[in-house]
């Protein structure tokens, strides 16, 4: 328990107690909240220097929630680039609450979207069966979310639903005084579904400093194929922690893309996938671009619980300015998880001398019939390539842009969905150009 932030924890526990007292929460949600609050009171926020937070000091971002500013003008240098994803089912939440007015009026058959409250009121069996089953008891921010979420978003994809139209969940935050929001989601993809889920985070103009602490539970059913895209393009004064808990059933495929093209100063993602059924395949692809004094921290953990599963992970980062990137990729192969194949790669391109990379690819293997490899590289772009391009008459600035694109190319190229790929590629290029402009004015 961190004593420095004890007063913030106290205050939050107070808020949680109010939520517990409030009406409208059914028995099991109330019980879960009570338990989480008790746990949160016990563990609080992470201590600086604890193993999972070794390189990330979250204290300043927490403390900032207590500074009572009315409005914060985003520094000019903070970048923003939001592009519309064409043809998508839009589901909009505002501070974690479903905003029906801004969401698509008509949902495709087989897709059900509601608030947690409505799911409880309609006595939804799926909701009852899966709510809270994946939440962590040890991850500080997951526990905090489980204690403090005000409303949740429940997305249920019926078995056999196949759709090419992306399900786009837009998380908007807006508030006039600094503070936390705790968006929470439960997404269930039934058996044999095939869907693309896109999540983006947006901060409305004029919003005060916000600490977004999101948590999602995602259940991937038998033989389902779920492609899940997290796109963080938050500009300005937002700190963002995203806790994702995924459980995959046999013969399923889960592919998570995690794009960080944002101006917000602090990002932490905890992505945890448990492969719970045989013959499942998990892919994690990440791309982070950081600049100025940003801190981008990705902690991923893939658990091979049973035999005959496969995981592939590739995270790439481009670091500018005095930014820092943390990557901690853990692969756990449990006893009995024979014939496991696990692959992990983390590549970092450092563009400026003040940038820092901390990376830790971690393997914990308790079975012998496994093929696990991981690799890490840290370095500068290829000077020969730069010279080659320059010798063909391309100005240095453009060369660097080309080299960065070349470096990140394979992550974006992995997206099989055409319009999502186009969207991400556009975001990436716009973002690089903004960065380039910013670097020039420096």
């Amino acid at each position, binding site marked *: 328990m961190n004593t420095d932030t004890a007063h913030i924890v106290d205050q939050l526990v107070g808020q949680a107690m109010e939520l517990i007292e409030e009406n409208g929460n059914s028995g099991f949600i109330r019980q879960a909240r009570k338990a989480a609050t008790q746990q949160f009171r016990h563990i609080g926020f992470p201590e600086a220097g604890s193993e999972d937070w070794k390189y990330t000091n979250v204290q300043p971002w927490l403390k900032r929630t207590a500074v009572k500013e009315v409005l914060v003008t985003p520094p000019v240098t903070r970048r923003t680039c939001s592009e519309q994803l064409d043809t998508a089912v839009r589901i909009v939440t505002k501070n974690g609450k479903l905003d029906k007015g801004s969401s698509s009026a008509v949902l495709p058959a087989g897709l059900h979207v509601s608030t947690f409250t409505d799911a409880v009121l309609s006595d939804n069996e799926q909701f009852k069966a899966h709510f809270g089953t994946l939440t962590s008891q040890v991850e500080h921010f997951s526990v905090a979310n489980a204690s403090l979420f005000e409303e949740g978003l429940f997305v249920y994809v019926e078995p056999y639903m196949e759709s090419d139209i992306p399900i786009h969940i837009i998380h908007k935050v807006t508030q006039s005084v600094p503070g936390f929001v705790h968006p929470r989601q439960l997404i269930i993809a039934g058996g044999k579904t095939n869907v693309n889920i896109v999540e983006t985070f947006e901060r409305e103009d004029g919003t005060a400093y916000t600490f977004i602490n999101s948590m999602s539970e995602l259940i991937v059913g038998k033989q389902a194929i779920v492609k899940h895209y997290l796109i963080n393009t938050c500009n300005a004064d937002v700190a963002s922690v995203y806790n994702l808990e995924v459980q995959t059933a046999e013969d399923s495929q889960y592919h998570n893309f995690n794009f960080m093209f944002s101006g917000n100063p602090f990002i932490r993602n905890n992505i945890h996938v448990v492969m719970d059924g045989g013959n499942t395949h998990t892919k994690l692809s990440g791309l982070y671009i950081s600049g100025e004094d940003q801190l981008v921290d990705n902690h991923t953990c893939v658990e091979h619980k049973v035999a005959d599963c496969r995981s592939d992970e590739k995270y790439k980062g481009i670091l500018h300015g005095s930014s820092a990137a943390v990557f901690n990729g853990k692969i756990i192969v449990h006893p009995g998880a024979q014939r496991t194949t696990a692959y992990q790669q983390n590549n970092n391109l450092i563009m400026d001398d003040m940038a820092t990379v901390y990376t830790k690819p971690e393997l914990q293997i308790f079975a012998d019939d496994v093929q696990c490899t991981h690799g*890490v590289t840290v370095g500068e772009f290829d000077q020969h390539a730069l010279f080659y391009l320059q010798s063909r008459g391309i100005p240095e600035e453009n060369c660097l842009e080309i080299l960065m694109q070349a470096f990140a190319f394979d992550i974006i190229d992995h997206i099989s969905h055409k319009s999502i790929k186009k969207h991400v590629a556009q975001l990436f290029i716009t973002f690089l150009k903004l960065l380039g402009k910013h670097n020039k004015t420096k």
Partner: protein
Amino acid sequence: MDTADTNNTLHSVIEGNYQYGFVTDIEMDILPRGLSVETVMAISEKKNEPEWLLKWRLTAYRHFLKLLETQGMPEWQNFNLPAIDFQAISYYAAPKSKPVLNSVDEVDPELIATFEKLGIPLTEQKMLSGVAVDAVFDSVSVATTFRKELSKLGIIFCSFSEAIKEHGDLVKKYLGTVVPATDNIFAALNAAVSSDGSFAYIPKGVRCPMELSTYFRINAGNSGQFERTLVIADEGSYVSYLEGCTAPQRDENQLHAAVVELIALSDAEIKYSTVQNWYPGDKDGKGGIYNFVTKRGICKGNGARISWTQVETGSAITWKYPGVILKGDNSSAEFYSIAITKNKQIADTGTKMIHLGKNTKSRIISKGISAGEGQNSYRGLVHAGRNAINARNFTQCDSLLIGSTCGAHTFPYIEAKNKSVQIEHEATTTRIGEDQIFYLNQRGINTEKAVALIVNGYAKEVLNNLPMEFAVEAQKLLAISLEGSVG
């Protein structure tokens, strides 16, 4: 070295158990169990130490207490560290016959016999040619060979106690400069109670003509061993150093908390090799040595080179991360490791490469082999600081798993703080393929020999880095019983 020889040795060890488990019956001077200011003072007094050293010890002791109180034992590891009762250990045990330092002939015959049994002949006529040995028995050094020959070149090679008496200035100048007494709880304990160890100094421009070697033997029960080794290579000098170690088979766990400090000045080179074969405990994990050592070198001057090679086969728990601080520009460091765990052994080992100077290079080759219920972890740090312009690191970290009940883990920490660094880390996990075994079977080689051959091949890159002169030692390195762990 010839792989066929190691192969035979491995095979012989597959058949047998731990070969060095005997106890020497010799009259001992043993301090009563327990740790206190008095213990620290008594050790210092027995060794007739100067006051500065006693003060240093007491500071370390106080730091140890403070760490124990405020932080307790380390908790970052991925295994349960058994409780250690520091009051149940005797911190000083020495053979009663007074060690004679100038002529090996006067050493107690029982001790000579003990070391001979371990394959370390100390008598003049039997000495290993080309190897100078410092033999440490429990808490004291009992014999150092080839001293005269070495001293002609200005090389100092003696026990730590003697170095304090005769080369106090050198010891005072360098002791604790690489591994401070405050480094960690075991380093603090070592500084407080270490009673002996080895000391070597190679003068400017001298290439040490023979391998220097320390052989450590724990004999007494309920005692710990806390030796301290200090090797200083002055500008442009070269030395190759090897340590070996064994202990009797006892049901209780014994603590070994050593500290090794290496200092390489400009253009000097130190090669430090370890063949660690402490008693590993029995097949149920009863007994065995807790091997918690702190080893670190510093490339202090420009162009200095340090390489660590280790073969870790013994101990119930091994916990060591021989590191190098690459302070001098253009300095380089290497770490080659084989760690084998079987039964219930735990090895948690790796290295720390701290790049501070410009154009510094490091290379890490780690090969873990786990069998039975053994757990093997590579834990390492590669750090390149802001000013470590053009720092380079390459790490290869492989695990070989034998049987489905063992574990192999890697925890590599990589920290890069400037854009000119290049760090590459690769790790793979493999097991011995049934097809490989069948292939060798078909050529007339039985399964156990086939496994030995494959393991040898797997470890070759590290074995090749051991000094030739230590063929005998090196052969012990694969002293592992793979019996029963091969299906």
